C-alpha cells in the first residue's frame, strides 16, 4: 500500500531524507521513530506528494507521488504535526469544509461529521468555534479531519500529543479499529510505548537514513539479540555445575536465579530445564525477560551516535 525506494530529499546542500526504502502492506501499522529533525516529517510530506523527491520514488495506494499527487491525496488522510485548525470555524463547519474538499456529497459529509464528532466526544461542542477548544479537543478534531473521507492510508504525526490519558486511549482505540478495517497507517511518534502497542513494523530514522526497520519482534531480536529468559530457583543452587548446552548463552547467574539467552526457545528451553533438574536444581519459575521497543530504539540510537546514550538506559 505504501512503497518507497531510495526516497531522498535535498534542501540546498542538506539531505533531509537520504535513501529511505519502506514497504507497508495493507492493514499494517508502521511506526516511524526518530529524533526531532531526523526526517520523519519530510518523509511523510513526500509520501503525501507535498514535497517532490530529489531522488528515488514512492507509490501510495497505487499512485505515484511524483505524477499523481492529486489522486494520491484523495486516498490519504493526514494528521500533521501542528493540528492546523481554523480557529474561527465551528467543528462542524470545519469538517464540512474538508468534506467538500474531498468531494463528499452533503449527506455523506453530515453522516461522517456526526459520527466522528460523536466518536471523539465533540458532539456537544460541534457548534462552538474551534478557538475555544482545549488542546486535546483540537487534536481530536484534527484526527477527525484526517478521517472524514475514510482514506485507505493514514499518515499520523504525533496523534496523541497534547491529549489527556483518556483521550489518548480513545485515539489509540480508533487506530486499532482502523487497522482492523484494513487501513494502512504510518505513525510518527516519540511515544515508544504507544508505538509498541500499536505498530506491526518499525523504522528507526536518524539524520535522514533508516538505521533499522522490520517487524516489531524481529527488530527487537535483531537489535537486542536473542530472547533472554530467567530461571528462578526454589532453593539456592550452585550454578557453576551447569554443563554447557548448545544454543544457550548464560548472561548472568546467582544462587537463586540464572539468566540465559537462547536462539530457539521452543527447542532449547525444554533441554535447559531438564538439564537443570537432572543437576539438582529446584526450579520455581521460567520467564522471558521484558524487551521493550524503547530498549531497541535507544540501542540503535546509541550505536548511531557512537555510544553516546548511557548503556544503563538500555
Amino acid at each position, binding site marked *: 500500500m505504501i512503497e518507497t525506494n531510495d526516497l531522498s530529499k535535498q534542501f540546498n546542500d542538506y539531505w533531509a531524507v537520504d535513501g529511505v526504502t519502506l514497504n507497508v502492506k495493507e492493514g499494517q501499522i508502521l511506526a516511524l521513530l526518530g529524533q526531532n529533525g531526523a526526517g520523519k516529517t519530510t518523509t511523510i510530506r513526500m509520501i503525501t*506528494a507535498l514535497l517532490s523527491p530529489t531522488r528515488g520514488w514512492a507509490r501510495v495506494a497505487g499512485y505515484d507521488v511524483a505524477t499523481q499527487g492529486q489522486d494520491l491525496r484523495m486516498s490519504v488522510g493526514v494528521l500533521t504535526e501542528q493540528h492546523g485548525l*481554523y480557529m*474561527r470555524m465551528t467543528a462542524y463547519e470545519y469538517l464540512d469544509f*474538508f468534506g467538500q474538499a474531498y468531494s463528499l456529497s452533503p449527506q455523506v459529509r453530515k453522516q461522517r461529521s456526526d459520527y466522528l464528532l460523536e466518536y471523539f466526544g465533540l458532539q456537544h461542542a460541534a457548534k462552538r468555534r474551534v478557538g475555544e477548544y482545549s488542546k486535546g479537543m483540537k487534536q481530536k478534531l484534527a484526527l477527525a479531519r484526517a478521517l472524514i473521507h475514510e482514506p485507505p492510508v493514514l499518515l499520523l504525526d504525533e496523534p496523541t500529543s497534547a491529549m489527556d490519558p483518556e483521550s489518548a486511549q480513545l485515539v489509540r482505540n480508533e487506530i486499532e479499529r482502523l487497522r482492523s478495517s484494513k487501513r494502512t497507517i504510518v505513525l510518527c511518534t516519540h511515544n515508544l510505548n504507544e508505538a509498541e502497542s500499536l505498530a506491526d513494523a518499525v523504522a528507526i530514522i536518524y539524520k535522514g537514513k533508516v538505521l533499522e526497520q522490520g517487524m516489531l519482534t524481529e527488530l527487537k531480536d535483531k537489535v537486542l539479540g536473542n530472547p533472554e529468559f530467567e530461571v528462578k530457583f526454589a532453593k539456592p543452587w550452585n550454578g557453576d555445575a551447569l554443563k554447557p548446552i548448545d544454543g544457550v548463552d548464560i548472561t548472568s547467574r546467582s544462587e537463586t536465579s540464572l539468566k540465559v539467552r537462547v536462539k530457539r526457545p521452543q527447542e532449547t528451553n525444554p533441554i535447559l530445564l531438564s538439564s537443570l533438574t537432572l543437576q539438582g536444581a529446584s526450579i520455581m519459575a521460567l520467564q522471558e525477560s521484558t524487551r521493550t521497543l524503547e530498549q531497541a530504539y535507544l540501542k540503535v540510537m546509541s550505536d548511531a551516535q557512537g555510544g553516546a546514550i548511557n548503556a544503563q538506559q538500555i
Partner: protein
Amino acid sequence: MLNRSSKIWLIAKRELRDQLRDWRMLTPMLILALGFPFFMNEVSYRTINFINQFGGPPIIVDRLVPASIFIIGFFPVTVALVIALEAFVGEKERGTIEPLLSSPLNSKDLYLGKLLAGASTPILASYLSITVYLILVSRQQLQMPPIGIIAQLFALTTAHGILMISAAIIVSIQSTSIKSANLMASFIVVPVAILMQSEAGMLFWEGDDARTLWFIVIGIFVLSTLLIRLGMAHFHREYLLGREIDELNIRQLSKSFWQAFKGKAISVRNWYSITVRESLQRLRTPLLVTTVLAIAAFAVGYQWTITNVPSMLERASSQNVTNFTELLKKSPDLQTLGRDISVTYLFRHNVRTMVIILILGIVSFSVLGMFIYLINAALIGGVLGVFQIIGLSPLNLFLYGILPHGIFELPALLLASATVLRLGIMLVTPQLGKSMGDIFIELLADWAKVFIGLVVPLLAVAAMVEVYVTPTLLLSILK
C-alpha cells in the same frame, strides 16, 4: 468547470467567512467604507464653498467630486491589502496550510479561491464607500459627475484593487512571514499611488472625455492578468512548505548567476561557441515574434505618417511651421556629425535604451519593454513616411541612412528585445522544481550573455558607422 468553480468558491467562502468573523478586520473596514465618505463629503462641500466665495477656477469645482471618488475608492483597497498579503503566508505561520495542501484541492483552485476572497472584500468595500459618497453628493446638491466618469471611476477602482491584490498574493506566496509580507506591501502601494497621481492628473485635465483613462484601465487589467499568471506559475505546494527562513544570500545568488552566465565554458571562445549559442537557440521563437512585431510596427508607423501627416501639415499654422523649421535648424549638421555627436555618446545612448527596455520589461513582464521597442520600430516607419511625403525616396533613406549602421544596430535591438520578451514569458510560465528567484537569475544571466556577448559589440560598431559612414552616405542622396 462547475466542479472547479465550486472548489474555488469553497476556498473563497471559507476565507470570507473568516474575514467577516474577525472584528479586527471588519471594524476598520466598515469605519473606512462608511465613515470616510462623510468626511470627504464635508471636505468637498467646504472646499467648493471656499472656492465659490473667492472666485476660484471652475475646473476645481467640477473635478472635486470625481477626484474625491477616486480617493474614496482607493482607501479600502489599501487597508484590505493585508487580507491578501497574509493569504498564504498567514496560513503558513498559523500552521493551517499543511492540512489544506494535503487535501486534493488543486493548486489553481487554491490560488484562485484565495485571490477571489482577497479581492472581493476590498473591492466591495470600495464600491460601498463610493456609493455612500455619491448618495451624500446628491443630497448636498453638488454637481454629480457624468455617468461615463462614474463608470470610469468604478472601473479604475476595480482595476487598482485587482492589481494590488494580485501582487499581494504573489508577495504572500514568496514571503516566509507575515512581517516580511507586510514590509513588502510598500512595493505595491507606492507604485499604485504614483500611477493614481498620473491618473488623477488626466482626470483633471482631460475633463469628461478622459479616454486615455480607459486605456489605462485596460493596461492595468492586462498587467493584473500577467501578475495572476505569474503567481499561478510559481505556486508550488513544495515552495510553501520547503522554506522556513528567508535568506538573502548574495554570495549564493552571485554564484548562481555566474554559473548560468559562464555555463560550461572554459575560455571566451568557448563561451561564445557553447554558452551564448545555447542562449541564442532559446531565443529562436522570441526573435521571430519580435521581428514580426517590428515589421508590423514599422508598417503602422509608415502608414500612419503618410495618411495623417499631410492633413496635419495643412492644418498647421504658420507659427507651427516656423517652430518646426527652427527645431530642424538646431539638429546636427550631417557634414559635421562626427564632431557634434561622438561615437561614445551614441553608444552610451543606445546601451541605455537597451537597459531601459530590460528594466521596463522586468517590471511589466516584458510588456513595457516591448512597447519601447515597438515605438522605435514605428518611429523608423514614421521617418520613412515623412521622406515619402516630402518627395524623397524612403527606400534610399533606408538604404543610405539606416541600413549602414542598422545592419549592426537593428540585430542588437532585436536580440535585446527578444531576451526581454522571453524573460517576461518565462516568468509567467510554470516551471516545476524551480523557484521564481532561480528562474529570474537564469533569465537575467541569459540576457547578460546576449547583451555583453553580442548586443554591446554590435552597438559599438553601429555607433562608429552611424557617426563616420552614415552621414556621408545620407548626404550623397540628399544633395
